């Protein structure tokens, strides 16, 4: 009987934790304006709920796959495709975060490099790629 009570309590804690984490993640994505940006790029403002659905589905599927140890046996190239998309998403997060923090406009204004923002941007992008490659290939041996 006490096992039921304990499990029930665990379920309540799990549900509460899930709601908190899920809400936090959505809030994070909303603050960073990722979805409006993607909608703008694909010219699909009316389809933004479809994209919300993709996020929710991705979160749920990955959570289940992680917790229940789901596995598929695919070629390593499939991992490459997944990695490319995952990297793209993290790159967008990183870009959005830089933009929210207003780093580049202030910096470019301060030192009068207004016309070279593109180059500064490319410095950040290439720095991210190089840093990431360095970490996986050299740093983590």
């Amino acid at each position, binding site marked *: 009987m006490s096992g039921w009570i304990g499990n029930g309590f665990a379920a309540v804690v799990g549900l509460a934790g899930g709601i908190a984490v899920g809400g936090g993640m959505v809030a994070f994505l909303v603050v960073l304006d990722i979805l409006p940006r993607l909608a703008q790029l694909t010219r699909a403002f009316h389809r933004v709920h479809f994209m919300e659905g993709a996020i929710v589905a991705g979160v749920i599927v990955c959570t289940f796959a992680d917790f229940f140890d789901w596995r598929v*046996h695919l070629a390593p190239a499939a991992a490459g495709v997944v990695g490319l998309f995952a990297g793209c998403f993290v*790159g967008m997060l990183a870009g959005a975060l830089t933009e929210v923090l*207003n780093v580049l406009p202030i910096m470019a204004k301060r030192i009068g490099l207004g016309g070279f923002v593109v180059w500064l941007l490319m410095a950040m992008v290439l*720095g991210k790629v190089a840093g990431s490659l360095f970490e996986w290939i050299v740093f983590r041996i």
Partner: protein
Amino acid sequence: MDRMLTPIVYVRLRKRVSAAPGETVKLGRIAQLLAEPELERTLSELPIIRADENHGNIALVDMMHIVRTIRTAFPKAQVEHFGEPHVLIEIAKKAKKPNRIALGVVWLLLFIGSGLAIMNFHEDVSMMEVHQRLYEMITGRYAEHPYWLQIPYSFGLGAGMVLFFNQLFKKRFNEEPSPLEVEMFSYQESLNHYIITEEYQKMHRDGMEAHSNRMAALPDGGPSPSAAASSEPNPDSAESEPVQPEGRTVERSGLRSGQGDGDRP
């Protein structure tokens, strides 16, 4: 000439104008005018302010001063204005060429800094363990170094940032402004807003003294501004053409001036 009895002058001020120190800024530089062709030509040569050192590097000219100047020259003129009631005059020594060395240093700073930041982020969220787990889930095998996942991931990182900022070096995917451009624009707008508020406060503090100073700063060309304009050899005209590096900002902000009306001081 009987049409000139009550000439109406329509004025739309620009947002921001650059001027060389010592240059006498004429009405035509800071505003779009619409009037009888002859009057318009005379008016556009009307000196408004002399950009000198004691203004600091930015000066505010407001509509009141412009109306007063026009009425001094043409007492009968009726002035109608559209858009913002003030213009900022940026007094620049010369259009500064950006320093190549500074650019290089900043480039390196951003390159190394963002590389380090992404490494710290990966450590922070245990990205290595997540990648190993993900690789195991996809291929069914554990790998100490899932390079098949990690190398595409790294390039995807760059692709995502480029996608977000809508820029691949100088080439862009479509015509819409990128978030960075919007951000630069709104940063400039808030700077302008701050400066304008500050300058108006200064004007209030100094009261009439400021106005009399400004009037004194005008070259004493006598009551006839057209004579003053024609007698002046206009030495600044060579310089005054290129010193407007922010033509794009001005143009774009002109489109939005209707929206900006709500938040002006």
